[in-house]
């Protein structure tokens, strides 16, 4: 009965919070209490999956291939923790970021609907149900993006919404094509039946459609264009959730497709995914160079890092998958902490423009050192987690003989070294810049909580790497997932 809880709890909370919209103090406390309970629940799920057991829950007790099945393996447990921790930290941050009269009453219910969509997408073992949870997540994200209804946000909200509606329509087209060919939407059943059918031309088209849909969510080249403006224009905590969790949902779906549904002859797509990943890496790294806004630099850096994650997946080997999982965990905490720190900075100095920030190191030493840790980690300086993430990835690439591709990835790592240092330099060194105001303590504490993981996962990299190995070991053996679902009671 544990598995449906991460979906049911946010749903129930969101409804209650909506009814409490006129009583903001109660609403806030209830929202944060529910997020804490959710984190504990998710920790229990992670502990239950740690031994290698795959938890299964049949919704409505329908027999195996027909009903919706929730499943949790180690990857699901890991992703759930990311979602619960980051959404929680961002909500607490928002308490300081939003002032009293800024339409908070809509914020809390929406955040819980979004969390429900995210956690549901990680839990479900059914492709159509994945679509439903995607939509729950997206509709609340559309509304959160256009939070203040100002000109910039309206423009971004239209762009993001239109692109995602096209992606959702294509998702449905993909589901219907799959159903027409194999007559099932259950992921384990699909895994068996798609392999039995062999690489028919129509099935190849279906696989490409799913690649398109999920790379739109994961902001991979050439579907990454929505990401910079969505990250920089939206309220900071929403941008942090986007960068930390929402894009990972797309990555998660790509992992599921690559390791469970489209396996065997479809491994030819490896090359395509690798090219996409490299283009994403290059675009993201070079895109940071002309930017002046701290948030836009972080957004392009997100694109860059997503390219690295996709590169790890495209290697389709246990080592590559291990590196990708390691990278996902590191990047989720790191990037959301940095975007929150940028928001903290915005609260302090009233700007995200690097030129107007100068001299932050003297004026706001704590905030700028939080950002320094982040930038060092993004640049890949040991002993922070960003170094190990890149190291394991390049190691996996070289050990598989993908010298050219890994070389390009390595070269772009040098570019990221450059942009991370110059950004910090422009922001923190020198004099001038705006006066520094004050920010509430909750903002500092939530940023510090997330930033601490950059250090923890750096010093404890061996521990996280062992865990990623276990996750990847389960992913590269789809028969475990299939047999767990088949024998579900």
């Amino acid at each position, binding site marked *: 009965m544990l598995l449906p809880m991460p979906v049911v709890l946010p749903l129930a909370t969101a409804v209650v919070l909506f009814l409490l919209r006129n009583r903001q103090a109660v609403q806030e406390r209830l929202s944060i209490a529910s997020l804490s309970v959710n984190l504990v629940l998710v920790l229990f799920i992670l502990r239950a999956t740690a031994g290698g057991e795959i938890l299964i829950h049949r919704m409505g007790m329908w027999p195996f291939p027909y009903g919706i099945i929730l499943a949790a393996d180690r990857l699901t447990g890991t992703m759930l923790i990311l979602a619960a921790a980051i959404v929680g930290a961002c909500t607490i941050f928002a308490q300081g970021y939003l002032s009293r009269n800024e339409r908070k009453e809509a914020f809390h219910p929406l955040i819980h609907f979004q969390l429900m969509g995210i956690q549901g997408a990680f839990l479900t073992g059914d492709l*159509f149900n994945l679509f439903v949870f995607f*939509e729950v997540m997206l509709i609340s994200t559309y509304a959160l993006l256009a939070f203040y209804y100002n000109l910039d946000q*309206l423009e971004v909200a239209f762009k993001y919404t*239109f692109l995602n*509606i*096209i992606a959702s329509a294509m998702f*449905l*087209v993909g589901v219907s094509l799959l159903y027409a060919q194999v007559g099932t939407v259950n992921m384990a059943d699909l895994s068996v039946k798609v392999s039995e059918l062999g690489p028919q031309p129509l099935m190849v088209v279906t696989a490409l459609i799913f690649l398109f849909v999920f790379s739109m969510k994961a902001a991979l080249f050439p579907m990454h264009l929505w990401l910079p403006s969505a990250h920089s224009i939206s309220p900071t905590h929403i941008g942090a959730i986007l960068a930390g969790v929402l894009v990972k949902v797309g990555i998660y779906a790509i992992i599921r497709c690559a390791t469970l549904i489209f396996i065997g002859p479809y491994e030819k797509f490896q090359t395509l995914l690798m090219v996409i990943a490299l283009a994403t890496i290059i675009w993201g790294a070079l895109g940071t160079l002309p930017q002046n806004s701290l948030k836009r630099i972080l957004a392009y850096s997100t694109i860059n890092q997503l390219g690295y994650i996709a590169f790890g997946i495209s290697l389709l080997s246990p080592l590559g998958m291990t590196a990708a999982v390691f990278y996902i965990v590191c990047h989720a905490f790191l990037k959301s902490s940095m975007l929150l720190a940028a928001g903290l900075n915005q609260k302090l100095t009233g700007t995200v423009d690097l030129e107007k920030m100068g001299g932050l190191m003297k004026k706001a030493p704590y905030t700028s050192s939080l950002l320094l840790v982040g930038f060092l980690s993004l640049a890949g300086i040991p002993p922070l987690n960003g170094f190990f993430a890149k190291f394991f990835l390049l190691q996996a690439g070289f050990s598989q003989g993908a010298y050219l591709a890994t070389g390009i990835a390595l070269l772009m790592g040098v570019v990221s070294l450059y942009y991370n240092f110059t950004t910090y330099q422009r922001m923190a060194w020198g004099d001038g810049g705006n006066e520094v105001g004050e920010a509430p303590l909750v903002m500092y504490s939530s940023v510090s909580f997330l930033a601490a993981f950059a250090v923890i996962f750096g010093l404890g990299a061996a521990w996280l790497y062992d865990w990623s190995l276990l996750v990847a070991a389960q992913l590269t053996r789809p028969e475990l997932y299939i047999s767990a679902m088949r024998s579900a009671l």
Partner: protein
Amino acid sequence: MTWYLSITIGILVTMGTYMVMQRRVLQVILGFSLLSHATNLMIVASGWVGDGLSPILSTNARLEPGAYVDPLPQAMVLTAIVIGFAVTAFLLVLALNAYLKLKTDDMDEIRRLKG
């Protein structure tokens, strides 16, 4: 029957694509609505097998699995319709807010205002 469905889907997609490329927000939203209906029809079509009898068994019915349409896609399409409805409703509210705030419903104008 599959032919009729295919042609209808084709017409809907054509109209939807044309509408999506218009400049006025309302037309774009209608275009997305048409596109989502086209995909809904595709799901219905994916469960269409054999003679297309409705999958309700009575005592003297023919018991051939091939004769009945698959009921599962029809259950799925209901969900998809509801989701499409919700997204359209949200888009209309967004468009209304944009219009009230910016006094325009022209996408190019919104982009120009942004500069």
